[in-house]
């Protein structure tokens, strides 16, 4: 045997060993997509307007307090849009002072436009709007990532999505309790501790009536969480300050615990900054009622007995599961804005397993049919083709495992198409060899000419298909990407197996003995 041929054979064996090693054991190495494994795929949109509105509201409330302290009297203050608020009734003699204070408090974030009769509009600056939106999406992404990690899902995907810049893709393979996962991801988990001014009362109207029909400036009415629970206890209402003493940002940690009645609750610890603030606040308000508010609902309200610093507890008829989940979402931090679902796809584990079975069955049947045909039509040369197609599939699997690519259901279709492409290359070569044989060449010359002539054709067809596969990957989503991936690597490995491996096999046989008639 020529040394040249020996090296070719050795390199083929080497590549096969590499592919085999990369795939083995397949159940660990080949990553299955959601459609095969079961799980949830969702696309969420961050309502960035929420984050802007919060910023606008807190800025307005801050200015209100400063104006009050400085004895500047103004009329109504209203938030007009997430990026805009208005202050009316600034008197002429206090105008200069008003401008000084608002410059000092707001100028970085808001631009001020003065209108007639002491009216001022404040609009968030466009660059600030953009950076707040980006920031809120980034924060949401990180928060969701932390929550998903705490859920203990293996190989989750949390990534920015789409072109709008405000979408997030979340994929949770193998998750079966979809509702719980959704609840955990979506709960804003905005924790606030606020001072109660009035209440509790049995209705919102009662509290408002006591104040002449509407909430006083800087205050709002919130209900408690009883209506969220089962049991049908009528809700209570509280009049609380708009500005929170403590928010979720001041938390260091939170964990499930039991309250004094041995019922599930969540205890939290504040960070040092939060503890100092909370200490001052509770010290100044001993004897008054304090409300722990989560996502706009009062969970517990208690009288401040003494100065409290670092630790607190939320109880409110939780189940053990709910307390644990609440601890989780509080630990991972609040979402800067609420989320809406744009897309949700759930695949049950049974369906996934069925699909794997169906895909494998279809692949094997396809392979068997093609193998049968090749043997009947091309006789001994058919074995050559079958070998090269089988090796192609092995190398493709090796690629997938090595690159940690995901195998989806359309990906299995890609495998089947790869079988088709592999067979096509072999058919092209064999038909060409037959033609060359017909012109009365020797077997060895005919085989060489067949491979040489067809090489360019195979290259052209494969490059054209690779172009299509690349665009499919670039623009495709989810399952289509899986298809494009298998198709792409299938094409690459097919050039190798159909041209190099198949030719080496022919040459090996022809080198061994004198062949005068080719079984093709």
């Amino acid at each position: 045997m020529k040394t040249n041929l020996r090296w070719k054979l050795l390199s083929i064996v080497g590549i096969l060993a590499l592919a085999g090693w990369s795939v083995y054991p397949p159940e660990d190495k080949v990553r299955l997509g959601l459609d095969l494994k079961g799980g949830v795929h969702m696309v969420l949109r961050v309502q960035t307007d929420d984050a802007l509105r919060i910023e606008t509201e807190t800025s307005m409330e801050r200015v209100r307090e400063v104006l009050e302290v400085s004895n500047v009297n103004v009329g109504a203050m209203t938030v007009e849009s997430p990026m805009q608020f208005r202050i009316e009734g600034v008197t002429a003699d206090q105008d200069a002072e008003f401008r000084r204070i608002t410059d000092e408090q707001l100028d970085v974030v808001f631009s001020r436009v003065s209108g007639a009769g002491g009216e001022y509009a404040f609009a968030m600056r466009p660059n600030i709007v953009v950076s707040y939106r980006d920031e809120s999406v980034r924060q949401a992404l990180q928060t969701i990532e932390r929550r998903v990690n705490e859920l203990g899902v293996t190989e989750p995907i949390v990534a920015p999505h789409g072109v709008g810049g405000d979408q997030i893709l979340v994929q949770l393979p193998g998750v079966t309790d979809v509702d719980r996962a959704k609840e955990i991801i979506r709960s804003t988990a905005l924790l606030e501790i606020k001072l109660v001014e009035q209440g509790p009362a049995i209705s919102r109207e009662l509290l408002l009536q006591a104040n002449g029909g509407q909430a006083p400036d800087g205050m709002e009415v919130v209900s408690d969480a009883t209506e969220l629970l089962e049991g049908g206890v009528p809700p209570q209402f509280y009049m609380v300050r708009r500005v929170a003493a403590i928010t979720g940002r001041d938390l260091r940690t939170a964990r499930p615990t039991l309250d004094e009645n041995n019922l599930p609750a969540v205890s939290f610890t504040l960070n040092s900054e939060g503890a100092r603030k909370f200490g001052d606040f509770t010290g100044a308000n001993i004897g008054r009622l304090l409300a722990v508010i989560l996502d706009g609902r009062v969970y517990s309200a208690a009288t401040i007995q003494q100065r409290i610093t670092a630790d607190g507890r939320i109880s409110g008829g939780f189940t053990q599961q709910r307390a644990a989940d609440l601890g989780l979402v509080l630990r991972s931090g609040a979402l800067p804005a609420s989320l809406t679902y744009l897309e949700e796809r759930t695949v049950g584990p049974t369906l996934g397993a069925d699909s794997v079975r169906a895909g494998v069955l279809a692949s094997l049947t396809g392979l068997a049919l093609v193998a049968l045909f090749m043997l009947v039509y091309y006789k001994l040369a058919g074995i050559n083709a079958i070998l090269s197609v089988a090796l192609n599939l092995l190398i493709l699997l090796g690629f997938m495992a090595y690159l940690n690519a995901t195998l989806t259901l359309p990906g299995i279709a890609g495998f089947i198409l790869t079988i088709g492409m592999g067979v096509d290359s072999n058919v092209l070569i064999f038909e060409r060899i037959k033609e060359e044989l017909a012109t009365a060449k020797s077997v060895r010359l005919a085989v060489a000419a067949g491979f040489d002539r067809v090489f360019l054709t195979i290259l052209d067809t494969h490059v054209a298909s690779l172009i299509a596969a690349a665009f499919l990957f670039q623009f495709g989503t989810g399952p289509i990407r899986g298809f494009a991936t298998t198709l792409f690597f299938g094409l690459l490995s097919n050039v190798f197996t159909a041209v190099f491996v198949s030719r080496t096999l022919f040459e090996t046989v022809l080198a061994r003995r004198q062949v005068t008639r080719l079984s093709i």
Partner: protein
Amino acid sequence: MQIFKTPNINFFRWRWQAVGVSALVILAGLGTMWSAGGVPLGIDFSGGTAVVIRFADTTPEDAVRAAIAAIPGEKVVQQYGDPSANEVLIRLPQIDVETGADLEQGATAIVDAIEAAGLGEFEVQSTDIVGPVIGRDLQQKGIYATLAALTGILIYISVRFRFSFALGAIAAVFHDILVTVAFLAFFGYELSLNVVAAILTITGYSVNDTIVIFDRVRENLRSMRRERLELVVNKSVNQTLARTIITSGTTSLTVLALFLFGGEVLRGFAFTMLVGIVSGTYSTVFIAAATAVFMSERQAAQRAAVLPAAGGGGSKRSRRRKMKARAS
């Protein structure tokens, strides 16, 4: 074994008949779609909710329909997959309001309604909820992917062969896409993400087929310089005919396996591929080659018309270009 010894069929004689047959199929497809009110879009593109439920016992579709009768909107209930699997697909249309709660409402309502109706034990196999934003997004992406892939292929063939050949290949691709969509309409398949993937694959496959013939034309042009292009192309089609038929035969076999055993999720995909492969083989032989020859001859005629008017330098350049085209 050999299917054809050395075939010598004059494919060009039938090119107008072939164009007629294709046009008929495509028009019938368009007609079917038109009478159905446009391309039937799956929820991937139209948005909406689809829930697949597997019942423990045989449950008639009508019972399911009755169970969810109270849910507003135009509902579709159909058997999903093999009858013995007791699976039912329930579809709800797009909900207008774009809020998160509303998006999930449909799926929840379906499960609640079926639970309340007491149809025995059941299991939700899969839920797909696609909001309007995503639907639009996916539609756009599908169109972009197809156009970008076609442009890439057009450029590649122009570089490797001639521009007129590229036009032939693209004509064949459009033909295949239209015929496939027509058959989707005849058999009531909806356009889903998977089907679009299949159409894109057909694009690649059709071009593949065409390139094999063009490659042979390029090779034959070297030894048949003096012959008319039509003859060279026809000879090339004949020479590669065995390969064309064997390949489409074996590929059809694998896709048929996918269609029969690949499960319900991939059925639309496999059907599309099956039609596309047959159409791709047909269009390679009748559409691509004919268009390439037609465009080449028109270009040549134009060049001949321009030549006498142009100066000596121009004619030299175009002669060189012609030689280059021959050689490449």
